[in-house]
Structure formats: structure tokens, C-alpha cells
């Protein structure tokens, strides 16, 4: 079965620090990869996605992620975090169901706390 691993459960950083959140997945076929963010009291929002092409993907709010196929990884990065980045971050993989249907498999999430 498909699985997604997020290495850090809780990350605490000071403003302006650099961020890297790890994500590894198990599916060996063609994958679509996503990072979602859940701000306090808000619903899940898409940060960025990878379908094909350039493995370095840029998303909203200055976030980017790099797909490394050989390592089954899709790590999220941001050069300089802000207090407003405090949220829970989920990595997800889109894998086959039946026919052309796909399901999202999520990691367990990383809670990021940015100290002012």
C-alpha cells in the first residue's frame, strides 16, 4: 500500500530562519505530489504540486519543493519563514484507485511554529 512519511512532527523556528520539511513516499509508479497547509482554524489549502517536468516546483507564499525520484522524496523549503507561516503542513501523493480514479494519501503532518 502507498505510504507517505513526514520526518518531523513538530518544528520550531525563529522568523527569518530557513525551513526544510522532509517527505518520502513509497509508491514506485508515476506519482503526482502535493504539499497542503492548514492554518489555525482554516481548511486545507494547496501550497504547491508536482505533476511532471521541472522537479523544482514553486508554490504560493515563497514555498518551493524538489522532487527527487531516486530518493522517493518531495521536500518542502522556504528560505526565510515568517510568523504567519505557523501552520500544519501535509505532504500527499496521488496514487491510482481504479481506472483513471486517483486517491490522495497524506503524511501525518508537520506542525510548524514560527517564533516572532
Amino acid at each position, binding site marked *: 500500500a502507498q505510504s507517505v512519511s513526514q520526518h518531523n512532527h513538530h518544528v520550531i523556528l525563529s522568523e527569518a530562519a530557513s525551513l526544510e520539511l522532509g517527505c518520502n513516499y513509497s509508491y514506485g509508479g508515476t506519482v503526482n505530489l502535493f504539499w497542503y497547509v492548514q492554518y489555525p482554524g482554516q*481548511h*486545507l*489549502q*494547496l501550497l504547491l504540486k508536482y*505533476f511532471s517536468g521541472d522537479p523544482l516546483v514553486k508554490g504560493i507564499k515563497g514555498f518551493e519543493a524538489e522532487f527527487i525520484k531516486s530518493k522517493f522524496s518531495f521536500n518542502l523549503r522556504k528560505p526565510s519563514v515568517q510568523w504567519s507561516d505557523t501552520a500544519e503542513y*501535509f505532504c500527499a501523493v496521488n496514487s491510482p484507485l481504479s481506472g483513471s480514479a*486517483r486517491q490522495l494519501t497524506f503524511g501525518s503532518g508537520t506542525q510548524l511554529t514560527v517564533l516572532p
Partner: protein
Amino acid sequence: DAGVTQSPTHLIKTRGQHVTLRCSPISGHKSVSWYQQVLGQGPQFIFQYYEKEERGRGNFPDRFSARQFPNYSSELNVNALLLGDSALYLCASSQGQGSYNEQFFGPGTRLTVL
């Protein structure tokens, strides 16, 4: 444009009861998926419906069922509630069901089973 809407926002039930959760997708979206998010974990896939047909089911017992209506809205039903069913239930909609269809999530229904 309205996003994905879910009702009710919160729900408290007791063990053994039945619950129905509702979801309205973004206008034009024909696919609805349901996820369960237990506190401290990522969302876990329950069902996907596309064009009113079930297209996939996650590893959940038969107490969980769903359906999609002609207007593409959807209901998730859970019978014989257990304490472990307490969770945030998320609905997501997408235009289609294939690889390149981004899923948009609703705010969720918080279910508490006492």
C-alpha cells in the same frame, strides 16, 4: 465563487447512533472525495465518487457508506458509531477524477462520539 461547503460544522453523537454528513462541491466539479482526519494525523481516504458512481474506497468498515446526487453533492453516512469515529471529516471536490485534477477541500465536519 463559493468553495466546498460542508454541514453541519460540529456534531455530537453517542455510541451506536447513526450520522449523516453533507458536502456541496464547487460549481462545475463532478468528483467528491471523503477523508477522515483523526487528531494528530493526516487525512485518510474514505471514498471517491465521480458522476454519481463510487470510484474508490479506502480501508474503512461497511458501517461507512456514501452517495452522490445528480447535482454532485454528496452524503457520508456512518452507522453504529464508535468512540474511534470521532474525527474531522473532510470533503474534497475536483473537476474530474484523473491525475491532473486538483482536489479542493472544505472546512470539515467535527464529529464527536461520546
